[in-house]
């Protein structure tokens, strides 16, 4: 295509985008002269250039629109009707431009419909002070594009001159207008243009924009530049390598400078690829305005973080999904003003868009304060489409149901409107986002609104990454997920411990699962001796924290993430690859993938969902880390890893027998050793493995024969046990495994173990809220209650529990500890009873001492039952009774 024409099309398109936005603003602030001047100037420029390039259809349209705007400038009120008409005109101009771009000449057609409308309004609002422009529509009919192009083709003026003239057109409209005359097939039209165009203010404005500080560069040129810079970096590195071999080379100084300049150049070129997300939002105000008119709603569009930069490729890809979602919010999300008023909300609905960087991710949120998602409709639709069975659907939480909107072909709009609900919906949005490796999530509260969160990770964006080494290769770990770096040494506080073949790190009283990167990646040499030294990159994926053991840590580097080749995309531990400053390609580790490969299935999404909703179901579904061991018999036994403070192997000779009990000196205290049964033998020599449990300053150790493994399993106790000390049996790794009840053994060591504090448990036939300030006992009681068939939600503070209850969550039974900081069990019960809606919730208190005083106080505050802490049968019985009562009520 003609360069000149090409440039015109690009430029005009951009001007029109601005006009769109400005017009909407103008409608809201009709008295803002500045906005109007700006619009006027832009439209005028378009018109002038069209005339110059012999594009009569465009010119006629621009002219008619300009005339109308001229009226506004003269003080006529800007009516909605007029603005809509101008917007429609702008749209038509865009259509013609599109055709112009592809066909290189103006498409055939008539715009007399719009033009006569425009003229009608001009007449309406104007006192007949300026005559309506001569009939353009006639011109259009007679002129064919071939005819139009002819004046340009013969080359009476050189292209250079033309271009120069063109440039000047932007700067000064009057020049354009003058130049226009001789070359124009319909010269009369320029007259009205000049009338208005010669007004002083717009001219000044134009002069300003003409000297603006940016130029247009094609994307290809940038890509080319990027490639060249990479080459330059490579060459520089080769030079550096050569100079390194010659000790005192005179090249050293200049080369260093070259090196620095190259680095800066690289950075600069990379920056050119970044664009503010506001570019993708530009069209939204117009869209929202049109929608609001069409749907008879009042909508405010708020935009925050428009300056957030992201890679232009990503920008292109999210543009359409964003538009679609905003449309959705306006159409489905927001209610009509009448409905809103009825619901006690302001008549004006609000759609809020925000974007920000979070670590290496870009987070985009689209929220509205509308009616929220229609859970029941989504549910029935999901069932109708066979996405879920009716039974299963009943068990799903609201948030889980909401996620069905992302399923292919899902659209809930019963009425197909002009705006949305045409069967293509969120599934398409999700597809687009998937393509760039992003995630999308939805949160919705009925009556309060819905909020969509899009997270675009690494891909294509520039992120900060930690460069690490494993088996001689370098890898990048996104800084976003890195919590801290730990140097593990054999004899330091942070040391790698091993449970069979599973390595763990004890970090600030927590056992952290470890994954050796070389092993995960299959790079372990055959003679892989497990080393205890190493760098541990502690990463967090959702709510899960684990350590990645690497051989070395280099530095942090800003990397441009490139998507993996389609042949390598199936490797889940990599999220992409990148070219480092020295020109080599390295893989980017996906912590999510690592988490999965070490046996956890807690994906970020699930974890996020867990955070968002204190969902009982999900909590019970959650995977539990279990330590599998043998003690006394060949049958495998297991205990939740979270309960164990430490794993020890002690020299059997250090075990002392005191008062008939086994003891060992441990960290300056005597620690009692407990045997699960008489079958368990305490070794006389060699290493004795122990599971150490601590609470505060007290520790006890359970004697075991052998530690087998650590596994991640859903703790699903299938057979309850009659044996004391065993909660029940569960299938772990295909083997029936006894889950031991730590709580049973603890009092064996310290009679007063449970007397220090009163602890409470809540169990419900359906659901139980358990409040206890000690995580140890929460972890311990949860499986006990689960074994008895309850769904358990445990909380660490009475205050939190109260908040949850007040927020409307209902439990069949509440079990509370009595002795807790801030608010104790008695106060908690009183607070619960004072809420009228909570009056009937049964509360069970657990205590190790059931004194008459405590019983009496308990009755006063409204405890339904009072159970001794380790009377398991009693607790279960009480729960059953109360839950039944609660349900009856």
């Amino acid at each position, binding site marked *: 295509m003609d360069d000149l024409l090409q440039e015109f099309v690009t430029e005009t398109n951009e001007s029109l985008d601005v006009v769109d936005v400005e017009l909407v603003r103008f409608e809201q602030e009709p008295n803002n002269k500045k906005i109007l001047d700006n619009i006027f100037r832009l439209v005028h420029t378009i018109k002038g250039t069209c005339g110059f390039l012999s594009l009569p259809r465009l010119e006629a349209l621009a002219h008619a629109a300009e005339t109308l705007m001229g009226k506004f400038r003269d003080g006529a009120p800007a009516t909605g009707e007029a603005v809509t008409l101008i917007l429609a005109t702008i749209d038509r101009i865009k259509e013609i431009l599109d055709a112009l771009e592809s066909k290189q000449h103006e498409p055939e057609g008539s715009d007399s419909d719009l033009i006569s409308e425009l003229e009608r309004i001009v007449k309406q609002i104007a006192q007949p002070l300026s005559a309506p422009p001569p009939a353009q529509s006639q011109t259009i009919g007679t002129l064919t594009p071939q005819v139009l192009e002819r004046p340009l083709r013969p080359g009476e003026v050189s292209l250079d001159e033309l271009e120069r003239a063109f440039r000047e057109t932007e700067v000064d409209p009057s020049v354009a207008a003058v130049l226009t005359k001789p070359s124009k097939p319909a010269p009369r039209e320029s007259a009205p243009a000049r009338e208005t165009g010669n007004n002083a203010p717009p001219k000044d404005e134009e002069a300003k924009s003409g000297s603006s500080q940016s130029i247009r560069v094609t994307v290809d040129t940038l890509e080319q530049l990027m490639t060249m*810079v*990479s080459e330059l970096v490579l060459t520089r590195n080769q030079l550096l390598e050569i100079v390194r071999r010659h000790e005192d080379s005179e090249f050293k100084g200049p080369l260093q400078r070259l090196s620095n300049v190259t680095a800066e150049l690289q950075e600069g070129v990379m920056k050119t690829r970044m664009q503010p997300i506001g570019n993708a939002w530009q069209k939204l105000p117009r869209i929202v305005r049109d929608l609001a008119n069409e749907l008879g709603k009042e909508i405010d569009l708020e935009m925050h973080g428009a300056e957030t930069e992201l890679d232009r490729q990503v920008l292109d890809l999210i543009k359409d999904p964003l538009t679609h979602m905003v449309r959705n919010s306006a159409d489905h999300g927001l209610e009509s003003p009448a409905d809103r008023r009825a619901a006690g909300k302001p008549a004006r609905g609000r759609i809020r868009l925000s974007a920000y960087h979070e670590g290496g991710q870009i987070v985009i949120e689209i929220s509205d304060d509308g009616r929220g998602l229609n859970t029941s409709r989504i549910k029935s639709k999901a069932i109708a489409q066979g996405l879920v069975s009716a039974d299963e659907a009943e068990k799903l939480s609201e948030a889980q149901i909401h996620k069905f909107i992302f399923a292919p072909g899902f659209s809930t709009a019963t009425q197909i409107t002009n705006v949305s609900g045409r069967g293509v919906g969120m599934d398409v949005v999700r597809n687009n986002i998937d393509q760039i490796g992003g995630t999308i999530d939805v949160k919705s509260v009925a009556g309060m609104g819905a909020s969509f969160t899009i997270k675009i990770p690494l891909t294509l964006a520039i992120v900060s990454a930690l460069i690490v080494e494993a088996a001689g290769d370098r890898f990048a770990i996104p800084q976003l997920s890195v919590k801290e770096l730990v140097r593990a040494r054999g004899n330091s506080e942070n040391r790698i411990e091993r449970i069979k073949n599973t390595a763990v790190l004890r970090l600030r009283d927590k056992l952290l699962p470890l994954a050796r990167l070389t092993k995960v990646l299959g790079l372990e040499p055959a003679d892989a001796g497990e080393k205890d030294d190493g760098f541990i990159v502690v990463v967090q994926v959702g709510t899960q924290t684990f350590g990645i053991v690497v051989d070395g840590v280099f530095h942090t580097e800003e990397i441009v993430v490139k998507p993996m*080749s389609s*042949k390598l995309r199936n*490797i889940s531990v*990599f999220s992409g690859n990148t070219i480092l400053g020295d020109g080599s*390609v390295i*893989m980017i580790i996906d912590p999510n993938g690592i988490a999965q490969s070490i046996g956890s299935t807690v994906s970020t999404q699930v974890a996020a969902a867990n955070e968002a909703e204190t969902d009982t179901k999900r909590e019970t579904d959650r995977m539990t880390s279990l330590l599998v061991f043998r003690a006394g018999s060949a049958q495998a036994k297991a205990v939740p890893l979270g309960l164990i403070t430490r794993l020890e192997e002690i020299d059997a000779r250090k075990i002392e027998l005191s008062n008939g009990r086994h003891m060992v000196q441990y960290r300056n205290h005597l620690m009692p050793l407990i045997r699960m049964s008489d079958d368990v033998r305490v070794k006389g020599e060699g290493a004795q493995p122990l599971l150490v449990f601590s609470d505060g300053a007290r520790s006890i150790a359970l004697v075991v024969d052998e530690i087998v493994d650590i596994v991640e399993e859903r703790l699903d106790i299938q057979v309850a046990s009659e044996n004391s000390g065993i909660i029940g049996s569960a299938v772990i790794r295909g083997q029936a495994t006894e889950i031991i009840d730590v709580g049973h053994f603890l009092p064996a060591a310290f009679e007063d173990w449970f007397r220090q504090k009163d602890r409470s448990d809540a169990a419900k036939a359906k659901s139980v809220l358990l409040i206890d300030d000690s995580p140890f006992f929460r972890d311990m009681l949860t499986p006990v209650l689960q074994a008895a068939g309850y769904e358990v939600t445990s909380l660490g503070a009475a205050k939190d529990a109260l908040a949850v209850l007040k927020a409307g969550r209902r439990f069949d039974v509440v079990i509370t500890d009595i002795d807790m900081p801030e608010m104790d069990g008695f106060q908690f019960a009183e607070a619960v009873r004072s809420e009228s809606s909570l009056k009937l919730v049964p509360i069970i208190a657990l205590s190790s001492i059931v004194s008459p005083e405590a019983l009496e106080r308990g009755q006063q505050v409204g405890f339904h039952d009072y159970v001794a802490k380790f009377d398991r049968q009693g607790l279960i019985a009480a729960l059953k009774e109360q839950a039944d009562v609660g349900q009856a009520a």
Partner: protein
Amino acid sequence: MTNDEHLSEYITAMVGGQMFGLPILSVQDVFVPDRLTRVPLSQPEIAGVLNLRGRIVTVIDMRSRLGLEGKAPDGQVMAIGVESRGESYGLLIDSVGEVLKLDDRARETSPINLDPRLARVCAGIHRLEGQLLVVLDVDRILDLGPASMAA
């Protein structure tokens, strides 16, 4: 002159002592692979990735892809750059030979007893003086099968 329309040009390459031909139109460039980064957990046919003028190129080891025995001779290896669906690939070969113009009509279908791994990517055979030239189909070489299924 009339023969021209039946002529195809091939870049010849040696892999494990066998001569192969790649249609010249599908070849972007020929380069010496440098700083190849291996990709853990990838399929055995994938030798690694490298940076070629700012693009990340996936390098496929033709020896392994064609099911040929033995190791590459010591010293230099070469790579033939091809493109497919916007992605760049490098085919790792032992050495690159001359460009041949061959008559399509002389091309024979591959013998039925050809090694199945070879047969899958073979588009025909040319009998040259003293040796056979196996014509390769680039698209089929890049179709690594299991990976795309796993993806």
